């Protein structure tokens, strides 16, 4: 079973995505805030295979959270991989920016 940490401040969206992932045989821990996600990762970053991060708002604080999660997860073994998503299309530049930082990016349909 894939263990996922989902950081998504939109509660409805987080619930729906978690449900879809659970149907796909994933165990999902939802964190509504950056603080909760950081605490969870500091406690047990090796306990997750994938971290999913919402970058829809594209705010500087979202990128800061992304960077902080990268730093926290980098040294853990096994290292969780990061997938970012956006519900708003912002062109290929955002995709490239995320990939440059060593994570994956997808647009939701």
């Amino acid at each position, binding site marked *: 079973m*894939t263990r*996922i940490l989902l950081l998504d401040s939109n509660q409805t969206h987080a619930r*729906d*995505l978690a*449900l*879809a*992932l659970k*149907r*796909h045989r*994933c165990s999902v821990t939802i964190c509504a805030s950056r603080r909760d996600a950081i605490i969870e990762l500091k406690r047990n970053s090796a306990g997750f*295979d*994938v971290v*999913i991060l919402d970058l829809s708002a594209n705010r500087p604080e979202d990128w800061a959270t992304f960077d902080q999660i990268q730093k926290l*997860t*980098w040294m853990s*073994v*096994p*290292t969780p*991989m990061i*997938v970012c*998503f956006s519900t708003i299309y912002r062109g290929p530049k955002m995709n490239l920016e995320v*990939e*440059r*930082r*060593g*994570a*994956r990016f*997808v*647009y*939701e*349909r």
Partner: protein
Amino acid sequence: MSMSDRFSPVIEEVDLLVAEIKELATVGPHFKIVHRFREYGTDCRPGEEVAWTILVFRSREYLLRLPLSLLLVFDYLGRNRWLPQSATQIVAGMRTDPFYARHGANVRTDGRQTRKISRSAVKEYVKRIRRALQVGFHEAGLKLDPYAVLVSEPTESNEIRYRLKATIEWIHVDCARSVSLPTTAFETPDDRS
């Protein structure tokens, strides 16, 4: 649009990452080793040069910053990746293999194209290869521990055996111009000193 359709890009990406994690854990990353100056119609024959080692990840290529001696050790470990070898075995294997003894002999250059690898140097070379792997993994955004790729395996005594956990593909070219290389800056530890 149904919920599963809406979230399918995220779910597909998670699937891909999980498959990638599993593959990296079981077989390790993929490398290309480029040999050049081959004799026409032959592959991996003595006289060829080990020119570059390239990390391939997600359809992109990243040049590893390895000087000649490390290229040779990496090539040797790649060829013998099924069997862990001690520093003594690596040195013996490289000294008796005509490929390394006649390395680069197919072309005349000013500098010496062979290297004498000593047992005591192997430990240091392993460290340097791991550093180069770390840089390559970082450039590729690949979260992988170099110690999990160039593995040190303990024995019943204090002897350590080294094994490269990776998939390797050898590419042969006849001259430098016929190979397309990644755009990563090519810098070796020797260049910096």
